Structure formats: structure tokens, C-alpha cells
């Protein structure tokens, strides 16, 4: 009976450790970039320092380390506020809603992208999801119109005065055009990518928006989410991808 209880204790400790590993690795994966590694390393060093200070009864060092550890929670929340917001937005997505029939907006978008790609006309289309993109947009022209392939195509035609910026789709409406987006600061992004792609990556690193980019060099389309670029093979797959990423509630 005693050995059974001891075994239970060991199993409980192992389960405790395994769950701690799982929670920390899951939380760490929500954070992006080299900073996440540095933060993990700094936290590990602080906890190791706490253990050593406790072991050798170094009261002052322990006090300092404990203060740093306690305040690190607030510090981390400030540093990673965007990542945390994005993570919560992702968690909040309900799977059941994905099965709901998609609105015409996606069809119009796909049709416009197909036309633009065929004519090798560059385009940058931002679809807002849970997090507002407004605070990250510079200049731009307010439009507030229904999303139609004709409107999108005409905005990106080379002689259009607002063809250089991004088109913004919010709540299923084309609200702005000619907007400049923040460029990515990520050094790992390929140098071969142009300003449109850099802007798309830059914005999606900050918010959970979905961005569709049409390259005027290659005439290919790509979907960018969370700073990651996915090449679109054909237009049906673009539609499928957008239906998967954009839930109907974000188009209402």
C-alpha cells in the first residue's frame, strides 16, 4: 500500500512536470521571433538564480531576483501585447462557424484577384478580422462601398491615383483604398520580396488580418497571415483558403 502511494506521488510529480512543459512550450509558441527565445532564456536564468540564491541563503540576491520575476509578468504582457491579443483572437475562433456558407465578398475578391493576376497588375487587399487595422494605416482614401470585383480591379489599374496602396475590407465593405501599411522589420524576410509583400507581412505581424497580394512581376497571388506568406496555386484554392481564414462574422 505504501509503495503504491509512493508511486502515485512520483506519477503526480511527473504529470506536474509534463503539464508545466506543455503549458510553457504552448505559451512560448504563441510568441514570435528571436525575442521569445531571449525571454525564455532570461526567465530560465532568473529561476535558476532564484534556486541558487535560496540554496546558498543569499537573501539580498534572492529578494532582487524575486522582484524581477514578479515584475516580469507585467513586463511580458507589455512586450507581447500584440502577440497575446492575436493569440486570444485565434483561440476565440469557433470551428462550427466555419461551416457557414460564405458571403459574396470572397467570390468577388477571388474574381478580382484572378483578373489582376492574369493582367499582372499588382494589388494589396487587406481583410480585417477580429483586430482593427485602423491604427496601423497611414493616409488612404475613405470609400465605404460594396465589395465588387469591378471596383477592386479599377482601384488597382495603373492609372488610378490610389493604385499604389492597400485596399481595406472591414465588416464586408470596402472602406479604404490607397492606404500605406507598416513594413516588416523582420530581417529574415527574403530580400527578393517587394514593398507590397513587405507591407503585407508587416501588417499581419501586428494584427490578425488576412492580406492578399498580387505580384505585378510574376502575376502570382499569395495569402499572408501572421507574417507568413502562402503562394496561391490557383483561384479555387484562394477561395478555399479565404473561406477557411475569414469567418462570416468578420464580414458582417
Amino acid at each position, binding site marked *: 500500500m505504501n509503495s503504491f502511494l509512493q508511486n502515485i506521488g512520483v506519477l503526480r*510529480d511527473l504529470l506536474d512536470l509534463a503539464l*508545466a*512543459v506543455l503549458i510553457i*512550450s504552448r505559451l512560448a*509558441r504563441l510568441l514570435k521571433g528571436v525575442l521569445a527565445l531571449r525571454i*525564455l532564456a532570461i526567465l530560465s536564468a532568473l529561476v535558476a538564480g532564484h*534556486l541558487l540564491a535560496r*540554496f*546558498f541563503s543569499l537573501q539580498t540576491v534572492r529578494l532582487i531576483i524575486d522582484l524581477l520575476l514578479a515584475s516580469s509578468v507585467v513586463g511580458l504582457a507589455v512586450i507581447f501585447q500584440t502577440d497575446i491579443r492575436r493569440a486570444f483572437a485565434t483561440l476565440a475562433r469557433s470551428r462550427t462557424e466555419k461551416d457557414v456558407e460564405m458571403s459574396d465578398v470572397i467570390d468577388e475578391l477571388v474574381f478580382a484577384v484572378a483578373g489582376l493576376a492574369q493582367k499582372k497588375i499588382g494589388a494589396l487587399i487587406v481583410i480585417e478580422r477580429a483586430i482593427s487595422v485602423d491604427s496601423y494605416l497611414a493616409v488612404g482614401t475613405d470609400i465605404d462601398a460594396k465589395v465588387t470585383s469591378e471596383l477592386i480591379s479599377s482601384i488597382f489599374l495603373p492609372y488610378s491615383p490610389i493604385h499604389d496602396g492597400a485596399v481595406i475590407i472591414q465588416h464586408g465593405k470596402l472602406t479604404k483604398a490607397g492606404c500605406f501599411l507598416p513594413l516588416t522589420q523582420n530581417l529574415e524576410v527574403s530580400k527578393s520580396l517587394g514593398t507590397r509583400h513587405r507591407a503585407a507581412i508587416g501588417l499581419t505581424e501586428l494584427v490578425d488580418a488576412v492580406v492578399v497580394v498580387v505580384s505585378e512581376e510574376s502575376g502570382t497571388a499569395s495569402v499572408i497571415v501572421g507574417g507568413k506568406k502562402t503562394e496561391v496555386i490557383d483561384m479555387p484554392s484562394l477561395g478555399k483558403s479565404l473561406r477557411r481564414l475569414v469567418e462570416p462574422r468578420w464580414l458582417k
Partner: protein
Amino acid sequence: MMAHVRGHEWLKGVKFLSVLLAVLIWLSVILERPGEMLLTVPVGLDRMPRGLQLEGGAPAELEVVVSGPQILLFLLPFHQTRCRVDLAGAQPGQMQLSFREGYFDLDPEIKVLHVVPDTATIVLARKEQN
């Protein structure tokens, strides 16, 4: 391809550091659990009044069971723990010593559970003048 390799390395780094951090946090919790330890502690009679001497014997060592956070107990065997009996103000004659917690130079978080023997009787006598 390069970005993919870097991403893979990043993931490995995150996994390694997550495990390291989890183990360190887990250790800091585990090592705070209370534990018990048996120590053999030498007895030291301090501040013997001038002109007095110990007659007969006094226990040289005590067996002490202490309890406290395991992280503090680990180093105890390497730390010269002593039982210090303050004889300042003692008078000639028999004296009953009771080995209480305050007699041991231990970390405040470590508690004395049992002392064997927990009491001792010593006899103090005046030194003979030559």
C-alpha cells in the same frame, strides 16, 4: 528554404528552453516542500563565568531532528551546526540544561522537532585557587 531551416531551429530552441524553464520552475516548487533530517550536533558551552569550571561531564553531541524546506536541508550536513549553551550568569552547583530551538544556529525557516537527549544536568564548581 533558409527561413524554413531557421524556423525549425527556432522551434527546437523554444522547445529546449521551455523544457528547461519548466524543469527549473518545477524544481523550485519541489524543493520548497518540507522535509526532515537527522543531524548529529556538537554541544558547545559558551561564556563560562570566570572562576567556574565544569565538573563531571556534559553531553558532547546531540541527535537533532529538524524540518524545513528541502532546499535548505540539502546544505545542512556541510554546515557546522552547533548547539550553543550560554552559561553567562551561571552559579556554582547543579544546572539543568534544556536544549531548545534557540540553542541551535539554524536558518530561521528550519525548525527543531526532537532533540535527544533534550535535557542534561551539568555541575559547575569553583576552580581551586593555587
